[in-house]
């Protein structure tokens, strides 16, 4: 079974498939793989079938339900939807049902898409393995003893094991691209400001961005086209023309200049990963791309700067979870300050507490200049590095993660070991650039390897175009994992 989102769309348009049947099929797939993968936190059967029936009604009377009419989609559980829980996989808002919906979700619904499930994540997006979830640990469909990556691990695992749906994730330091890499799918972190963040539970507001995880760059382009654009509810969303991303991604890449920076192939990159990415670059060269070396001298400082900046912003953003407005409220508190302290202590998981503490520390009097301000200055240097490099080339290519998916539990004893896998993805967030991960091979163990493409701000189309050219020439993105929704409902 290799049905793409475009096939689903076209069959619904042609009247060969009803939106209700498409929703049923999506629900069947999610229900088939979820017992093994634990990727979906909420399966929204009733809501989905009601929405699909409405799309069918509109199609039946000749109305235009929108460009995504009847296409099923899933949403990461830190993005607000009107149906299902928006729990952020945190005890502090475990049963939370949002009273409003995210702009990105609303735009997909208004384009006719049908929400079928919410997906698992690391609590508030803090993690790279989906092990830091208060709900459950998601498994990698290629090898269920291994992590799917994170924090959008639920979306990546579900995307990998199913077909014909759209999946929304969020990316603060790699949380779309790294799980996409580990699960063998294509994930795009759009340019900062390309997609409204309204309704995304804020982790680090200057780094967060919503984006798609799909089976191809063209599917990502379709989702981006529907979500992108300025929004009065997010003053950091940018009023820049929304291109026809599907059309622009379909153009060829001859003459495009691709940069390789030795700093983005550091020592810690496993040999198998390096070799797969290098073979991928040869494919692009064969398609007419010109490959040259560029320099990003400060890239090695990106992860330490990210650790400080993201924690600082998190400590401020998560102050809103106070036991008063929503979520968990401690039963063991006398006065108001005790209520805050007890509710937060009982509600937040260990990694979230670590980040809040580090963030509060670097923002506190006496340490602000030495840590937070220093990190912001380093962020500026990294941004300048990319400006210079992307003045010489149209895109920069590197591995998405230094390693492939690792065994569940392997990196949980030491948070620093988990932070280390983000080194090649965080620069895109610090510099506000679009970046995409796509599969480019399998390791000896049979685990997917991801290749990453960085582009210039607001040139998401160029990134998608390079990925689509690669996928037109290769079949890595079409390979299916052992656990999938069509081999007897979820194989080995």
């Amino acid at each position, binding site marked *: 079974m290799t049905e793409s989102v475009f096939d689903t769309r076209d069959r619904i348009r042609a009247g060969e498939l009803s939106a209700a049947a498409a929703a049923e099929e999506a629900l069947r797939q999610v229900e088939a793989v979820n017992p093994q993968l634990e990727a979906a936190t909420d399966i929204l059967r009733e809501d989905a079938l009601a929405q699909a029936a409405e799309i069918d009604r509109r199609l039946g009377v000749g109305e235009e339900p929108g460009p995504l009419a009847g296409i099923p989609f899933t949403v990461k559980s830190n993005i607000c939807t009107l149906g299902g829980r928006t729990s952020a996989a945190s005890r502090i808002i475990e049963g939370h049902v949002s009273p409003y919906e995210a702009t990105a979700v609303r735009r997909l619904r208004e384009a006719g898409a049908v929400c079928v499930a919410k997906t698992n994540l690391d609590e508030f997006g803090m993690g790279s393995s989906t092990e830091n979830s208060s709900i459950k640990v998601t498994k990698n469909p290629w090898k269920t003893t291994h992590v799917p990556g994170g924090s959008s691990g639920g979306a990546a695992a579900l995307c990998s094991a199913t077909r014909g749906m759209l999946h929304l994730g969020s990316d603060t330091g790699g949380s779309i691209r790294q799980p996409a890499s580990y699960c063998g799918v294509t994930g795009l972190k759009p340019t900062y400001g390309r997609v409204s963040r309204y309704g995304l539970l804020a982790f680090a507001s200057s780094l967060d961005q919503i984006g798609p995880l799909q089976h191809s760059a063209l599917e990502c382009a379709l989702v981006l086209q529907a979500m992108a654009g300025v929004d009065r509810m997010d003053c950091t969303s940018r009023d820049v023309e929304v291109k026809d991303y599907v059309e622009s991604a379909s153009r060829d890449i001859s003459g495009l200049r691709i940069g390789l920076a030795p700093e983005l192939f550091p020592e810690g990159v496993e040999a198998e990963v390096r070799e797969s990415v290098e073979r991928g670059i040869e494919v692009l060269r064969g398609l007419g791309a010109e490959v040259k070396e560029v320099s990003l001298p400060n890239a090695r400082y990106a992860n330490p700067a990210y650790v400080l900046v993201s924690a600082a912003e998190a400590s401020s953003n998560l102050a809103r979870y106070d036991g*008063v407005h929503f979520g968990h409220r401690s039963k063991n508190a006398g006065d108001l300050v005790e209520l805050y302290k007890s509710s937060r202590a009982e509600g937040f998981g260990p990694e979230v507490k670590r980040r809040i503490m580090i963030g509060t520390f670097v923002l506190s009097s006496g340490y602000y200049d030495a840590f937070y301000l220093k990190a912001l200055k380093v*962020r500026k240097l990294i941004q300048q590095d990319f400006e210079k490099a992307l003045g010489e080339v149209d895109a920069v290519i590197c591995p998405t993660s230094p390693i492939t998916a690792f065994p569940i539990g392997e990196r949980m004893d030491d948070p620093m070991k988990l932070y280390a896998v983000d080194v090649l993805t965080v620069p895109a967030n610090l510099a506000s650039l679009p970046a995409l991960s796509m599969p480019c091979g399998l390791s000896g163990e049979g685990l997917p390897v991801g290749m990453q493409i960085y582009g210039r701000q607001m040139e998401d189309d160029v990134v998608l175009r390079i990925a689509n050219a690669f996928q037109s020439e290769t079949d890595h993105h079409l390979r299916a994992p052992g656990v999938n929704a069509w081999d007897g409902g979820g194989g080995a």
Partner: protein
Amino acid sequence: MSGASRASITEERNMSIEVTDELVGKIAVLSRLNLTPEEIAGLKEHFEKVLEYVGELQELDTDGVDPSLFTTETSNVLRPDEGAPSLDNETALRPAPESEPPYFLVPRIVGDAESSES
């Protein structure tokens, strides 16, 4: 003392920050988190590791570099100050763990008549 020289003194000083229970405890109060002694001990170790990890940032000369908060060209986005519908009171209160419409409920924050006299 100028801002710049104060910053450089702080930068030098941070090279040898001693992470004590007291420091971690103070940050916990600022973070509004009740922590157990085991959590304090774990966080102390974590602080030491993070400080070591980010220590290499000090190698970089950042004198005269503008700190970057946002890296896009956008600044000061203005729009007309026009009213628009927002959540009604009942909907906004729905997720609250305790409420007394139209209010969120919190513990008493000022003492009653007796305790304020004492």
